[in-house]
């Protein structure tokens, strides 16, 4: 295994060049070769600040959400966002979904995929660059690493240096902080599945369920491993998205692009030399030094690139110092690269059939979901006919069928409902609480499924075979109605 001697050249006055290799580019990677550590240099500029802001907002959402409270009334769950597996409910602020309403989650997932398609069609891999948990946590881990061990060159020197007390101290404190962050990540995750304040107390008093500790452990391990040690390998080898994104991006999608038409031919440039007959790229390799993925953006768009735009910041800084216009590396499209080569001006087409289609699909899905939520039924009925015995012959010659009714009341209040049957002449209900009209009146418990066993009797002489029978429940107070179809079976002579 060869390793380039790494010399810190930035210290030389007036020389912007840095000896950085794109260790994760396709050519540099061999199948059985051990991974080469990447030491990303701190970039400074607009996109770095944007990424800091995205990190703060996203981590803030992740850590704070389970602690938000939402008043649902006395004795009810007061966590704003909660996946309650035991109680089989999903709480999301004003919403409380039951397992059979999982299609709202499906809708949300469809919406999320269209959102990622749309963002890819507009700005390439913005998800990868700014919002993906892998990117956010890796960025956070590199921030810690940089704070303890210093920037790129200091870290490289430290890793080459023989073990010393100071090196050991730095390494140990870095890994300790990483593990703490990892534990906090796993710790916050479990709060989405249980009452956060209670769980928080139980975790520290050792009273939480073993599965809680197991999941904290698993997520601590994965966070530490993925963000601390695996980093770009996750994007390069494990993640399917870099492969899928090729289908999402077209010629007009913006992505982080090295404008080769302007940059080439590249070469070192001394102060005072002419810019005639050469490109603007001074081959300082700053774009490679800041890259967390260990690639050279000047090789063109590549699978390993997560479009984090840190190379734009690095290059802009250099361009400013050498007195050339910024934007040698910038968000740009393939179409514009081609147009420039043909001597035409750049043209940005954000509104195209593809983006209109994605936008329209998102609008339709969102509208359907809003419609569904607005007209959501809070009362429903399931009827299960007893199959053994299929029917019961009574002493007076009438025939009885038995049914298990499930009254689903999705509101906070118990509701008095009236059960009635229709569709079979002369059929009557048999149950303890018949009212004057021969209907059954029962209480459907709040926020629960109430089971009621109902007997239906058809008069003697009901014809042999299966008859359609429909059950209706009606909320006496609101008039809300739910219906369920079933059958009535009658047999022949004994």
């Amino acid at each position: 295994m060869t390793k380039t001697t790494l010399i810190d050249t930035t210290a030389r006055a007036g020389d912007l060049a840095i000896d950085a290799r794109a260790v994760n580019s396709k050519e540099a990677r061999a199948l059985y070769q051990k991974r080469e550590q990447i030491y990303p240099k701190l970039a400074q500029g607009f996109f770095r600040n944007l990424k800091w802001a995205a990190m703060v907002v996203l981590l803030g959402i992740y850590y704070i959400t389970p602690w938000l409270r939402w008043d649902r009334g006395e004795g009810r769950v007061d966590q704003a966002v909660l996946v309650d597996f035991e109680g089989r409910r999903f709480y999301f602020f004003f919403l409380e979904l039951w397992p059979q309403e999982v299609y709202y989650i499906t809708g949300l997932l469809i919406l999320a995929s269209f959102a990622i398609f749309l963002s890819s069609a507009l700005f390439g891999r913005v998800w990868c660059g700014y919002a993906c948990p892998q990117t956010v946590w890796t960025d956070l881990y590199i921030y810690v690493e940089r704070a303890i061990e210093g920037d790129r060159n200091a870290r490289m020197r430290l890793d080459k240096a023989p073990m010393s007390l100071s090196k050991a101290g730095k390494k140990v404190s870095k890994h300790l902080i990483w593990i703490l962050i990892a534990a906090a990540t796993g710790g916050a995750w479990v709060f989405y599945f249980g009452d956060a304040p209670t769980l928080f107390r139980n975790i520290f008093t050792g009273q939480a369920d073993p599965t809680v500790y197991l999941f904290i452990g698993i997520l601590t391990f994965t966070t530490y491993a993925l963000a601390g040690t695996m980093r770009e390998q996750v994007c390069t080898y494990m993640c399917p998205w870099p492969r899928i994104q090729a289908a999402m991006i077209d010629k007009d999608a913006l992505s982080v692009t090295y404008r080769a038409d302007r940059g080439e031919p590249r070469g070192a440039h001394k102060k005072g030399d002419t810019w005639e007959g050469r490109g603007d790229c001074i081959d300082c390799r700053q774009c490679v030094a800041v890259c967390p993925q260990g690639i050279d953006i000047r090789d063109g768009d590549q699978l390993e690139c997560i479009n984090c735009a840190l190379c734009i910041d690095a290059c802009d800084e250099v361009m400013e110092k050498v007195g050339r216009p910024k934007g040698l590396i910038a968000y740009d499209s393939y179409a514009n690269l081609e147009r420039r080569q043909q001597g035409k001006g750049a043209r940005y087409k954000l509104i195209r059939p593809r983006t209109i289609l994605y936008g329209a699909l998102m609008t339709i899905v969102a509208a359907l979901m809003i419609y569904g939520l607005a007209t959501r039924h809070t009362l429903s009925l399931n009827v299960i006919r007893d199959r053994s015995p299929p029917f019961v012959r009574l002493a007076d010659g009438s025939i009885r069928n038995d049914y298990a009714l499930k009254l689903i009341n999705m509101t906070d209040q118990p509701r008095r409902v009236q059960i009635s049957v229709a569709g079979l002449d002369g059929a009557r209900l048999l149950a303890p609480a018949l009212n004057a009209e021969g209907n059954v009146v029962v209480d459907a418990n709040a926020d629960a499924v109430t089971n009621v066993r109902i007997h239906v009797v058809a008069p003697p002489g009901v014809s042999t075979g299966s008859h359609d029978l429909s059950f209706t429940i009606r909320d006496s107070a609101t008039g809300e109605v739910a219906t369920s179809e079933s059958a009535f079976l009658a047999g022949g002579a004994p």
Partner: protein
Amino acid sequence: MADRERDAVSGTETTGHEWDGVKELDTPLPRWWLYIFYACILAAIIYWVLMPAWPIGNGYTKGVLGFSDRNNVAADVSNLRSARAPMYERLAAASTAEIAADPALQEFARAAGESVFGDYCRTCHGAGGAGAPGYPVLADDVWIWGGSLADIEHTLRVGIRSGHPEARNSMMPAFGRDGLLTPQQVGDVTEHVISISAARTRLDPNGASAARGATIYQEQCAACHGPSGAGDRTLGAPSLNDDLWLYGGSRTEIRRQIELGRGGVMPAWESRFDAGTLRALAYYVHEMGGGEPDAIPVPATTETIAPEPAQNGQATAPLN
């Protein structure tokens, strides 16, 4: 191992094995795989120490944790028993009205009853009490010995022709087999029984034969089944007026029953189940659909249920 041969193309060492000029490369295992492999070996050794692992003669290494699936199951079962015990006690002490007013008790009785029914009763009486020829339907509203909760519980407790000292006994004579009636007379009684039952509309009894049978009926059958065939629960004599037949409702089966006087045996469950389980089972059967309201409230404690004298004697006449 410095002298191992290297493949010129890939630069990888070979194993030294060669088949027909093809040499095998000694490609290193992927690291992640190797580490997991080592971890598995380590985990296996730790497992041997902690858990039951190796067979030795008639026994096995017990492991230092003392883990045993058998003990765990036994502990689970006994925990479950003690957790359920209070509900069974409440159930055994509850009256019908108390059960009706307590949904939690009902739910418990229903679940416990269904479970016991499935294990012990379903074989004969069918799932959901569907019944079978000779084994009464429990889901209907026809009860030979009474359909109140107390009646059902008593039947469960002492059984039918079970040999229990208080068992519910009834014995229909085998009129044909034992030569009490001639085949002609059996046929006439059959026609009469059909003519007083709801089956007359579908079986069309022979009027002359039925009229002859009526006389025999009044002599031989009316003592138990009643002059009009209404039956008598105190004697365990079924009603003959409906169209529900324990051994089948065809003309042949009705006649065969008069000839043979068949009667099944139901075990007495008193010695098998505790009071709570019996009450749960009775509640479950009562709730199948044909349960009757209580004539006499179920006593608060099941121990005080007095055997009804009328149900004891098969040969003796009822006291009232």
